[in-house]
């Protein structure tokens, strides 16, 4: 039987699991000691971190007076029906640059690779190349006789002198 993912266990622990997830977890826990142990571990970890963060020295931060330019008596209607003008959480600049550069690199590679592939399709390929050279040590290079045999991919033989 496959064990339960940690995020589902965390959701179950926090009472955020859906009905199906909850049923599945409970059925699985009856027969899996490992997951029961994992759940206990998650619970302990969550409680410790919660306790450490909530038992802050600044829990009783003093309330400073309202800035003088703000009118404290301003009436606030919080039960309106207009949609919330939600500000977006901005990604850090470094992360935005990293994502942008990665995308640029991938595009660059695609464009560089494509012409190479296209060029390769029409290019003639030489399967074998052999040179027969008879060397006369007493003659200059320009007078040496050279025969070159070229066999292409379809097996045709070409002699070049």
């Amino acid at each position, binding site marked *: 039987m496959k064990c339960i993912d940690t995020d589902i266990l965390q959701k179950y622990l926090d009472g*955020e699991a859906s009905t199906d997830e909850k049923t599945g977890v409970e059925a699985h826990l009856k027969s899996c000691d490992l997951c029961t142990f994992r759940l206990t571990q998650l619970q302990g*970890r*969550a409680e410790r971190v919660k306790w*450490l*963060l*909530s038992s802050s020295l600044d829990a009783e931060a003093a309330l400073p007076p309202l800035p003088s330019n*703000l009118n404290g008596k301003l009436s*606030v209607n919080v039960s309106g029906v207009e949609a919330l003008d939600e500000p977006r*959480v901005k990604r850090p600049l470094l992360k935005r640059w990293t994502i942008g550069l990665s995308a640029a690199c991938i595009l660059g590679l695609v464009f560089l690779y494509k012409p190479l592939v296209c060029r390769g399709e029409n290019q003639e390929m030489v399967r074998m190349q052999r040179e027969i050279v008879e060397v006369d040590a007493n003659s200059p290079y320009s007078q040496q006789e050279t025969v070159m045999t070229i066999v292409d991919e379809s097996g045709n033989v070409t002699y070049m002198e």
Partner: protein
Amino acid sequence: MRTFEDIYAENYARLHRLALRMVDDRESASDIVQEVFTALYEKLTAGTVLLYLNTWLYRVTINKCTDHLNRQKRYRPLEEVKDAPTEEILPERVERERVVQQALSRLKPTERALLVLYSEGFSYKEISDSTGIRFSSVGKTLARSLVKMEEQLKTLSYEMY
């Protein structure tokens, strides 16, 4: 119908706690919270009706904290301790607070915000709305952040047990 002063008094301490956990600097945290309330005031005087006031406040606070951290271009040096222990606070509590804050400062801003909101008892929906993390990813991100937090605490040689 409530007044702006009521909202300020109700939310100041919680927002300050969140900002302090995120930026780890009392003065900056106070400035950020004041900026949040100034932004809220401007919204309200401009006639905007906020349907989800709490979510808006938390989200703007997290954004401003993230901007503050980005402006700093570095996380706070680990050795730096700004809060000197006072006579009436037990030394072990000061030490615990220092270690917790150091461990938090080693996490990403979103993970810090997530853990602080979780420790404040927020639901996954509220966490998702406030931090911008997808609702379906909250459980997974939370489980991962809790593990990271615990690892950092252990690295800092803090005995949680």
